[in-house]
């Protein structure tokens, strides 16, 4: 048992030196480095399952307590050809752990000749994040994948949560998105309907939440792999909606006049 454990640990080479409290760590580095500024986690990401696979969407605003650090960030990161992850929390932490997960999944694929399932990937990520529980690490990701078992969606958080489900929304704008998704999501949606629903949900969240905004990224994952739509500016959506409302009002006025 001991031999197997040691072999396993040495396979994940970079990982051991990062773990806090291990005998090889030179300083208790996670405990002693102070945070440069208070971290705040502002975003809106969502993902849901339907007959066409899994749809993942996110806004593109990267905020840094009140400053919009980047209006064109990428919060939906592809991990491999059939797995996509949405990220929420600290951008640096999310980017790093996604790359570590991508590396581990590729190594698994090379060693075992097949891809790890989405639930397996989620479990791996959750166990990798476990040593950092209680520190300021903040990663809240939803892994959206389509494997030989079908599409699946798992939510993984650095506080240890790992939930399998059909609809998730993460971030400060998530309550606004949840109510829109609850109204419209069902299994029989077409791809176009699902895309416009996801866009509407992110738009409503960016409308009310100060820490979400700018553009929306939409990815669809199915058995053939992931596809990405061109990034859409939500400002256009705002003007389109105004036009639509004005048009509806004109139509109604015409209807009442003709009656």
């Amino acid at each position, binding site marked *: 048992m001991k031999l197997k454990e040691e072999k396993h640990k040495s396979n994940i080479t970079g990982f051991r030196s990062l773990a806090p409290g291990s005998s090889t760590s030179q300083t208790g580095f996670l405990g002693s480095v102070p945070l440069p500024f208070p971290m705040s986690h502002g975003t809106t990401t969502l993902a849901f399952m339907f007959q066409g696979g899994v749809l993942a969407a996110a806004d593109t605003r990267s905020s840094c307590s009140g400053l919009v650090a980047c209006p064109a960030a990428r919060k939906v990161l592809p991990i491999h050809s059939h797995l996509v992850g949405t990220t929420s929390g600290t951008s640096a932490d999310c980017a790093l752990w996604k790359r570590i997960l991508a590396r581990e999944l590729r190594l698994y694929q090379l060693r075992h000749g097949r891809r790890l399932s989405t639930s397996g990937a989620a479990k791996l990520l959750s166990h990798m994040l476990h040593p950092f529980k209680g520190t300021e690490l903040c990663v809240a990701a939803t892994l959206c994948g389509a494997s030989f078992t079908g599409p699946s969606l798992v939510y993984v958080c650095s506080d240890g949560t790992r939930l399998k489900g059909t609809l998730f929304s993460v971030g400060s704008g998530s309550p606004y998105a949840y109510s829109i998704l609850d109204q419209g999501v069902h299994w029989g949606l077409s791809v176009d309907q699902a895309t416009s629903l996801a866009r509407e949900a992110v738009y409503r969240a960016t409308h009310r939440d100060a820490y979400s905004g700018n553009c929306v990224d939409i990815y669809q994952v199915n058995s053939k792999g992931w596809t990405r739509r061109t990034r859409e500016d939500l400002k256009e959506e705002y003007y389109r909606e105004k036009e639509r409302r004005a048009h*509806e009002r004109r139509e109604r006025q015409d209807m009442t006049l003709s009656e």
Partner: protein
Amino acid sequence: MALVEVSGLRRFVELRDQILPAGPTPLLHRTGHYTFGAETPEFAVPLGVDPSGFLKSCSRDGGVSIDMNHGTTTLAFKFRHGVIVAVDSRASAGNYLASTNANKVIEINPYLLGTMSGSAADCQHWERLLAKECRLFKLRNNQRISVAAASKLLSNMMLGYRGMGLSMGSMICGWDKEGPGLYYVDENGTRLSGQMFSTGCGNSYAYGVVDSGYREDMTVEEAYELGRRGITHATHRDAYSGGVVNMYHMREDGWIKVCQEDVSELIHRYKKGLF
């Protein structure tokens, strides 16, 4: 009182003769109305009591904690045919559900409604006091109080106790000479007029739904449906909201109570799949 002397506050009665001409005392300067029955303008809290300090001691992590969260969802929006007010009916005390059919709308008069979110005791007390003041206004001035004035009265009451730990988020809705009126009043004294508000910890869920379905020229039935949906989706996702949807419609000739429907039945109507 020692504090009154130290702060240099003099009895109003002494100063009044110097400031105002002699004659019958106008309404404003009599004891009672604006000084809550005291001859001297006093501090609102008895000596030796420190409400804000007491409340800070009650929010210690790990120890006894009184969480003044606004555990509810209420929403109200103005449209062409009046104001729709919809509230849930769950009253929670921490994790315990004290009531599943609490009444969170106070009917001030046939033309004014107030919603309650936050501490139930604070809301009920201050809104009943507001109802009293509105009635007195009507008796003294022989006309109904406007929505702006009623919300201003409530806001000033809140400002008098600012920082002392009150918790109240309320919307004052009515129809007066200016048309339909909707004001949001907070325990900090915030007073905002607007087209649509939602308060309570479930407010973000309600905002998503109402923002996407709101049109200024909705029909009355569409507006009822939107109010019901907003509360239903919020109660579905928020743990501190639930019970029934109580909905009122404020019209030109007064308010009517539209419905009282259980959210667990409504959610099955509105949520399509994945159940």
